[in-house]
C-alpha cells in the first residue's frame, strides 16, 4: 500500500473503493475472470457426485497441508532429534528415506497391489513385482548412502593427510 502524501482536500472521510479493495483495478479484473472460468468449469466438474468432488478437491489441499506436510516435517524433526549430537549424519538417512517414501506415496496402489485383478485383466501381466522392486530400490538407496558415508569417512580420517585441498566442512 502506498504511503504517498495525500492532499488535505482528499482527506475527507469518504468511501474509497480502492482503499476497501486494497489492490489495483487490474487485480480485481483478473480475479473476476478467474472465478468466472472456475465457475464455468466448476459447475461441470460438480455435476454428478457434487459432495464427493468438493470433498476431493478441498480435501486434497487440506490433507496435504494439515496431514502429509506435518507428518513428514515431524518425521524429519524426529530424525534430527535422534541424531542430535551428530547433525552431519542427518542427510545420509534423510535422503534415502525421502526418496523411498516419495516412491511409496506415488505408487502406493501399485506397491500395495490394490488393483491386482484389474491390472492383470488389463495388461495380461502381474503387478506383484512392484513391491519387490520398491524394496530393491529402497535397499539400493540406503546402500549408496552408506557407501557415500564410508567414502567420506575414509577421506577425512585424521591420520590420512591428503595433499588434495582440504574440503571445507560441509554445511550440514
Amino acid at each position, binding site marked *: 500500500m502506498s504511503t504517498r502524501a495525500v492532499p488535505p482536500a482528499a482527506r475527507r472521510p469518504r468511501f474509497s473503493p480502492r482503499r*476497501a479493495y486494497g489492490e489495483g483495478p487490474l487485480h480485481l479484473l483478473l480475479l473476476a475472470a478467474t472465478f468466472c472460468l472456475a465457475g464455468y468449469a*466448476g459447475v461441470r466438474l460438480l455435476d454428478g457426485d457434487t459432495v464427493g468432488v468438493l470433498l476431493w478437491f478441498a480435501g*486434497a489441499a487440506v490433507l496435504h*497441508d494439515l496431514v502429509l506436510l506435518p507428518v513428514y*516435517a515431524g518425521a524429519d524433526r524426529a530424525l534430527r532429534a535422534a541424531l542430535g549430537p551428530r547433525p552431519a549424519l542427518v542427510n545420509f538417512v534423510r535422503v534415502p528415506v525421502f526418496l523411498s517414501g516419495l516412491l511409496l506415496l506415488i505408487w502406493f*496402489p501399485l506397491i500395495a497391489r490394490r488393483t491386482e485383478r484389474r491390472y492383470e485383466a488389463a*495388461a495380461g501381466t502381474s503387478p506383484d513385482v512392484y513391491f519387490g522392486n520398491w524394496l530393491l530400490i529402497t535397499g539400493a538407496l540406503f546402500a549408496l548412502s552408506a557407501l557415500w558415508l564410508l567414502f567420506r569417512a575414509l577421506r577425512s580420517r585424521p591420520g590420512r593427510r591428503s595433499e588434495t585441498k582440504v574440503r571445507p566442512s560441509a554445511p550440514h
Partner: protein
Amino acid sequence: MPERRRLRSLPDSLRAARTPADPAFWRSPVRGARFTAVLGVILLAGLTLLFVTGLLSYAAYNPDLNRVNDKTPDKGLLGFYLFSWPTGPHWLYRLTQGLHVTVGIVLVPVLLAKLWSVVPRLFALPPARSAGHALERLSLLLLVGGALFQFVTGLLNIQLDYLFPGSFYTLHFYGAWVFLAGFITHVALKTPRAVRVLRAGVPRGEADTLAAPDPLPATLSRRGALALVGAASLLLLVTSAGRSFDGPLRRIALLTPRGGTDPGPGPNAFQINKTAAAVRIRPADTGERWRLTVRGPAGEFRFSRAELLAMDLHSAALPIACVEGWSTSDQQWRGVRLLDLAALAGYPDRPPGVFVESLQRGGSFRKAALRDNQVRDGRSLLALEVNGAPLSADHGYPARIIVPAAPGVLNTKWVETLTFGEL
C-alpha cells in the same frame, strides 16, 4: 560450537508457545524467496506443458466427431479449440501423452517442495488484509486444490485405482480448467516478483517473507535442497520413462504401471490395453464363424478372415499409445487399408469417416468413430497380422483397427462392423 548453544537455548523458545501463525514457528533455513522462485519457475513451465498436452489428448479423441468419442458432452465453450486430430507424425500421440504422464510423475517432488516452501503463508495472520487479498487467497484454493486434484486423479488413474468420485475423463478435464483459472492468476500476480528475485535477489530494504526469521542451523543448504528435489525427479524419471518403449528401456522402468516386463515372448509380446478375457471375448465369437460387416452406400458386405487375407494387404509400422501414458515402440502391422474398404462400401475417392463396432461385451470405447482424415491415411489399417504373425487374441484377433497417431482406445480390437458415412 554454535549448534550446541542453539540446542541448549531451544527450551526457552519453546516456552513462548509458538503457533503456526507466528512466523518464528517456521524454522527451516531452506525456505526463502529464491528457493520458492526457482521451484515456481520450473512449475510454470512444467504445469503449462501438462495443461497443453492434456488439451491435445482431449482433442486426439475427436470428441466433436461423434458422441461415442465424447466423455464430456457438456463441455460447452471449453472445447473451443478442438480440431481434426492429424495422423502424422505417426508418433504424435505417443509423444504428447508420454510427455503428459511422465512429466506429471516427474513434477510431483517439485510440486510438493513448492507447497512446503510456502506453507507458512497459509497460516499467516490476519487471514486477509483486504477484500482483494481475500479473493486472491480464495483463488489459491483453486490453484492448490486443483493441482493436487489433478495429480492425484492422474496418478490413481494410471494405476487403475478408480477411487475418485466419477468418470476420470470428466473429473480430469473439468478439473484442469478449474486449476487453470487459479494458475493463470497466480502466474500473473507472482511471476514478476519471482523473476526479479531470481535476477537480483530480494530487493534491498524488503523483507524475505518466505524465509524463517529465526532459522535453525542448516543441515542442508538451499542448493542441497534443490538438488534433493532434482534427485527425486531424476529417480522418478529413470524408473518411469521406459514405459514408453519396448525391450531394455521398459525393463529399467522398475516402478511404474506397465514398467518392467513385456507380456510373454513372440511377435505379439508387446503391451496390451485390455485382454480378451477382460472384455469377455469368447473363442466362439472369433472363430470360423466370425464375419466382418462393412456398410456404406454400396450396400452391406460380409467378409471372412480368409477373404480379408486374400485382399490387397498393406503394411504400416505404428505404435500403440495409451492415454495412461505408456506406449509401445512401432510394430509391423499388416492388413487391409481402410481406404480400400471404404471404396468397397461405395466411396471410391475422398471417403468420409467410419463408425467402428467391436465384439467386446464390456469396456468403454466398444464403439468408436474415426474421422475422414484418419480413414484417408494409407497407413490406417484393418490389421490382421502383426510382426509377421496373426494377431493374438489379446491384440484383437481376428481383426483390429490401427490408425497413425490415434489414442490407443480408438484402435478398436475384435472389430465386428465398419459403417462408412457421415457421422
